[in-house]
């Protein structure tokens, strides 16, 4: 009975649904505030994403004629569910997670599935803007998938050195290895991988410099053109939750070793590190450079960022 309760708490409270949603909205609010401050203006309040979500829920939902009702309304919920289940596999510092052998690949594919949910949603809306939006979203997915995979392989290779198979695909194993011999960011071989991961995060989430899929100025909200009301609110919530998922993944992969015993301290530590990572990889590029063109995003990720990830993979290979 107790572990069912613990399971429920784990599922719905601490590293579960509530914590993820609150953290996501908090990170989005802080990110918008910091970008505003970097542009020398006051900027919206921290709770602005929460107000946006509530306001969207309050609006009327219009289902266009060409849209396919079932998929159109189902896609946002599916995307949200997939993201939450991906977030549950990431071990928070307290090490309390449902991870099992080989769940790094499951997380990778769940994030791809979340992208596919957005794509199916915009395809079901039937608008030509959404058509262009989804093709750009797919190009973004192709471009960040290569470096993302290389980084995961590098971390797997590093943390799996002494395991029987020479590689590990389990988050628990990664966190345990890091607690023993220092978080992987300290290893010199992993610095390029960390930088590559920092570059991958904004494109995965669709933050400003790489948000070719929802480019308001060019293709009027791209994938979300036909969405209004509650589905739009859920999609915006997914956007925020993805911020938390990616930053928590970064913390788990590269700062795994810093977990103290107490649960509360770990939670605070996680929040602080997520904010720092958000600032580094999302706020700074957002404030500095303008939106990339579609093929620039692809060329940037497949040449520069993949090279970084490859360097670290080979370094780990040699250092073994």
């Amino acid at each position, binding site marked *: 009975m107790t572990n069912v309760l613990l399971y429920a708490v784990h599922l719905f409270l601490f590293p579960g649904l509530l914590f993820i949603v609150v953290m996501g909205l908090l990170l989005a609010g802080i990110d918008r505030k*910091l970008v*505003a*401050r*970097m*542009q*020398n*203006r*006051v*900027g919206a309040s921290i709770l602005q994403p929460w107000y946006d979500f509530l306001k969207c829920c309050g609006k009327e939902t219009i289902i266009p004629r060409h849209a396919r009702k079932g998929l159109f309304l189902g896609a946002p919920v599916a995307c949200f569910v997939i993201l939450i289940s991906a977030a549950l596999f990431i071990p928070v510092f307290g090490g309390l997670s449902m991870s099992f052998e080989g769940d790094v690949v499951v997380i990778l594919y769940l994030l791809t599935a979340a992208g596919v949910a957005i794509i199916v949603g915009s395809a079901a809306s039937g608008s030509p803007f959404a058509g262009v939006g989804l093709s750009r979203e797919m190009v973004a997915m192709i471009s960040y998938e290569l470096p993302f995979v290389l980084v995961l392989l590098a971390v797997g290779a590093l943390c799996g050195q002494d395991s029987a198979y020479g590689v590990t695909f389990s988050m628990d194993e990664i966190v345990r290895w890091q607690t023993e011999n220092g978080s992987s960011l300290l290893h010199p071989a992993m610095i390029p991988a960390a930088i590559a991961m920092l570059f991958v995060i904004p494109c995965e989430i669709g933050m400003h410099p790489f948000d070719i899929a929802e480019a308001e100025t060019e293709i009027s909200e791209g994938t979300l053109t036909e969405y209004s009301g509650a589905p739009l609110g859920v999609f915006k919530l997914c956007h925020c939750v993805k911020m938390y998922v990616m930053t928590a993944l970064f913390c788990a992969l590269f700062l795994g070793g810093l977990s103290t015993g107490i649960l509360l301290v770990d939670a605070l530590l996680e929040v602080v590190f997520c904010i720092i990572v958000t600032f580094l990889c999302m706020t*700074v590029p957002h*404030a*500095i*450079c303008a939106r990339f063109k579609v093929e620039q995003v692809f060329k940037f990720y497949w040449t520069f960022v993949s090279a970084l990830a490859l360097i670290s993979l080979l370094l780990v290979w040699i250092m073994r």
Partner: protein
Amino acid sequence: MILPYLGQSFKNLFSKPVTEAFPAGDPPKAAEGYRGRLHYDPELCINCGMCMRVCAPQAITREIVPLENGDQQITFTYDMTSCTFCRMCSDFCTKKAITLTDDYMIVGSAHEDFLVSGTFIKAAPPKPKFTPEQLEAMKKAAAAKKAAAAAAADGEKKPEEKAEAKGEE
């Protein structure tokens, strides 16, 4: 690869944002000489109509109500929503009745709060001293007097002509 605005944005991060706290305080004063909401002073106006003629968007309408003692009650209404704030009217107004203030906060939903209007009573012109019949009579008398004077002048001119004629013969 130089990051263009990295230094500047970090400086901004820690400096005070430049945004005005407008809706908190009162609206900042507009620049000097700003052409804002129109102000119309009915007393100075002489209803010459120059402003109406010169206003491009015809934002000015006049309404004349004749009163019983011949006076006219004239109301000028300036429609701020169709005014382009070019200040032509105040330049051409000989009596300087129209001035453009620097109040730029022209925001409202009903149509009334965009209209600036002023009414004044234009006194009727003084009554003429003589009635038209008297004018007729005075005119006839003047004409008769002139005819008599002319006849007298003919009498003394004849003897001169006679002398000229003799001289020539």
